[in-house]
């Protein structure tokens, strides 16, 4: 059964809460963004780029559902 194993088992979120919450920018800090946060966002977008379906327009157009509740 090639089913469940690919579920993300990742890290244990609760234990790491404190350490990994993205740092809230200080009020008024404006553009002086923490570089690690920018890197985190870049890294995330790279990851999503890698999994997004190709040809967005066609894919979205093809997502058609029939009636529902």
């Amino acid at each position, binding site marked *: 059964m090639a089913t*469940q194993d690919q579920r993300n088992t990742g890290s244990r979120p609760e234990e790491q809460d404190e350490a990994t919450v993205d740092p809230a920018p200080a009020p008024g800090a404006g553009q002086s963004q923490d570089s690690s946060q920018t890197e985190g966002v870049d890294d995330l977008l790279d990851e999503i780029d890698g999994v*997004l379906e190709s040809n967005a327009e066609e894919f979205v157009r093809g997502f058609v*559902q029939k009636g529902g509740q």
Partner: protein
Amino acid sequence: MGTETEYGIIAPGVADANATVLSTQVVNAYAATLREGLGNLAGTRWDYTDEAPLSDARGWQMSRSVADSSQLTDEPAVLTAEQVALVDQGGSDPSEEVAVLMNLVLGNGARLYVDHAHPEYSSPEVTNPLDVVRWDRAGDVVGQRAMARIAATPGFAPVVLYKNNTDSKSVSYGSHENYLVPRSVPFGRIAAALIPFFVTRQVMCGAGRVGLGSLNQQPGFQLSQRADFFENEVGLETTVRRPIINTRDEPHAVAEKYRRLHVIIGDANLSEVSNYLKLGTTSLILSLIENELVPIPEIAEPVRELQAVSHDPSLRHLVTLTDGRRVTALDVQEMYLEAARSAVDAQGGGDAQTADVLARWESLLGTLRRDPMEAARQVDWVAKLKVLQAYRDRDSLDWKDPRLALIDLQYADLRPDKGIYYRLAARNAMERLVSDDDVVAAVTDPPTDTRAYFRGRCISSFPKEVVGASWDSIIFELPSQRRLQRIQTREPLRGTAALTEALFAGSRTAEEFVLRLQGGPEPSMAP
């Protein structure tokens, strides 16, 4: 309480695939995985005897002749011979003739079935919101297992499931909640007290959507997947003229004692915190209503405000109340929070989970008030908006860009490698409340403190003899009996592990089990 999730479904490689056939493939693929594990046919007919989808909680019955055909949920779906062939083709063992199934009752007490054009998972009944999160998530795993099975079966195009509520063209499908409420509480009072709550709770549990309007007429982003599809305040329908308060009076329980409040307005949540608070706070409001302690900040135009709140991610929109005050959705939520907190304090603080729901609710409203974007680890719409905004910033996209619509859709993709929610969760960017191990256990194990335990254990222990089931019945076919034995389970809080575990452990056969159940010294299952 419990949830029902209709999943969006497509076969990306097959443009004209029939949605009912695809949904049937999902049910049958999951049945095949169960058969593999148990060596038994796991299909169980749904017992429609006690279904009453046209009973209205306001005290009347809708006539079948005027009902929309989609409302007739007490009739099983039927496939044409051609469709049956499509579901059955390329089955795992050609020598084995296996009937096409439209319905399964699972060992965890849930129901997996074909609801018109969607596969639907109805979770087993549970007593608390954390268990809702567990058994709702278990449904996602069921869907993932079915998808993997289909993808691995020669002759079948892969099928993808989405835990969302709209195709952003014109169609919306629901994710419903159910709550058991004493029938002694007048329905009118429930409706009045819940409408303002439902109009505003989307700030915590909206799943987020790219596009505005039921036909996606305008570009933009909104909090809720469902808000634009609601047209009425109160009504029986779930597919047309959708109401904020649904009046379907189908108790699935002792009808004189309980009603089942059927809530159709929520979004399907992937965020565990959103799901937890959606059910947790709504149950708190229901107990306030029961005790006549609820504040009723009556909203002047609820349907319009539902949409206005949804269309404003800044959360600053002012809702007009009938007394003339203009307040934000967060203000309305805080009125309910304060009432709930005083009521719980007056009763000595409540149990640990109630305290946790209150604390998280208060903290989340505070975060949303400070800066909604800070709630990205807790709230689906914020998590989604943060990703969309990052794309907009990086690639200068406007809201009409199809890539943003794709991100919206793919946020809800159930495949762990493709779904953006799952990618975020794997990066620890979403707060989790239950462990993966707990969820996997909930795929097979029923909750122990409701009748779902009895249902699930019957299915697992006697898969050959249980030939039918529903929320409030189990039907046994026993070799020694000419008639089917129908056991009613109309009391949702009976049939628990505490009451029936010994009975299961002490019965070697289904015959013995039913005999002891009906005549033995053990507490009877009948109410």
